[in-house]
């Protein structure tokens, strides 16, 4: 009996311990790093190169980063108060289109970027929000890319990317404001859909 209890106890201790270690080490950088590593390993995957593999590659990338990038939150922030006026279906539809746009822009940019080395340089935590600074080598210089995150159910989720002081979400937010003022939500969603269509047809580069 004792022979059984000891290993059982050890197993339990191990389980509890791993759980404790996991939540303790779940800092922004530690959560973001495996996601970006996986993203770059998919981009490097020889079997997924080229335009004909674009769909498969994008699908795997989006699946990989969805555990660390909150596209719904990005969509909500980018729309601002207009989000509150939308119905549930409209919101879901907007999230799908906005996610597609960000995928085309962000992943499309990474696909054309040769360097694969991401250096994790710094981390700031302020209440429920955090900022992870990575450095990307471009030619002879290092370009800082900051991932802005917030804690949601014990996970740090990226909701903005900031490059040299330029916030991706705020940039879209400002563009959307101008469009919303003139053409309302219907006009905006049409413009986004058209843009995604251009990306899908390969008319906006990859």
């Amino acid at each position, binding site marked *: 009996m004792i022979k059984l209890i000891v290993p059982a106890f050890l197993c339990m201790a191990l389980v509890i311990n791993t759980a404790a270690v996991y939540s303790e080490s779940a800092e922004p950088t530690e959560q973001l790093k495996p996601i970006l590593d996986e993203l770059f390993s998919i981009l490097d995957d020889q079997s997924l190169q080229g335009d004909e593999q674009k769909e498969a590659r994008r699908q795997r990338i989006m699946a990989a980063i969805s555990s660390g990038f909150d596209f719904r939150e990005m969509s909500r*922030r*980018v729309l*601002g*108060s207009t989000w*509150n006026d939308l119905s549930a279906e409209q919101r879901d539809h907007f999230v799908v289109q906005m996610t597609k746009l960000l995928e*085309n*822009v962000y992943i*499309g*940019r990474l696909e054309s970027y040769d360097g694969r080395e991401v250096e994790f*340089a*710094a*981390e*700031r*935590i*302020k*209440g*429920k*929000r*955090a*900022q992870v*600074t990575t450095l990307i080598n*471009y*030619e*002879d*210089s290092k370009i*800082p890319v*900051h991932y*802005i995150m*917030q804690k949601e159910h014990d996970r740090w989720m990226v909701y*903005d990317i*900031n490059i*040299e*002081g*330029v*916030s991706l*979400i*705020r*940039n*879209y*937010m*400002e*563009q*959307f404001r*101008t*469009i919303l003022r003139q053409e309302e939500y219907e006009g905006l969603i049409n*413009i*986004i859909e058209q*843009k995604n269509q251009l990306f899908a047809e390969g008319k*906006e*580069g990859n």
Partner: protein
Amino acid sequence: MRTLLLIVLLGFIWPALSAASELDRSPAAGIGAELETSPENPYPDLLIDSKDTNILGPDLLGNDPFLMDPVEYLDDPIFEDDFTLNPSPPPISDPFEPVNRVIFVFNDKFYFWVLKPTKNAYSYVLPEDIRRCLGNAFANIAAPIRFINNLLQGEFEDAGIVLGRFVINSTLGVFGLGDAAYRDFNIEPRKADFGQTLGKWGIGEGPYLMLPAFGPSNIRDTFGFFGDIYMHPVPYISDNLTFDLGYLVENRINLLSISPDVYEELKRMSLDPYVAARQAYVDYRRSIIDKP
């Protein structure tokens, strides 16, 4: 043609300058500034170490896009704690938007019809190595701009680095053609311009301007641009305006040929390229001016 361009440019800026005094705004105070705990600001800075900003990079957390209009989100518990962080950045002043948009369209055509073909022909004639060497040399000759501006900003350490790089690259780098300071000594360049200096002195950016051929700017940075020209050594040495302008054009084309296609990238990713460029320019300039 070049003279014409300059006249058009000056003609455009001049009326804008007179409007500057009325429309001048205070600089983007508080963005990126360190937080302090206070009754109005109950969220203490939980940073690991907020003193060493070089290691941590700029503080962008106060710069939340949602802070633009916090009242709209009061019913939203997720953002409640964000309201009390930094004040929202001042809105961009763009009273000349209709004119700016026309110039933006002109610049777009200018880019695709003139600049890009010129750049492509230039890149075809000169191999990349040579263009990079020339780029290094142009940057090295312009070192006085960065040196003086770093001094004016009180960045004496950076001024020293600029001087050190200039000495190393002018000698070991053979007239600045090679960046020996970076390759052999790992000393990275330090940028500084007069528009940034004016910003650090507390001078507001003024209305946003889209300059023909030069792209996004504002009243302050346009002044800064002319200030930088005065700090450039070439006009003092050459005494020949045609040569100076030729030098400027060659410098620009060379820089364009060794830089990533920022403009095409911007067009590719945006729904309203004019607003995207304006926001990106203002955010970038504010970030390098507010950097501690």
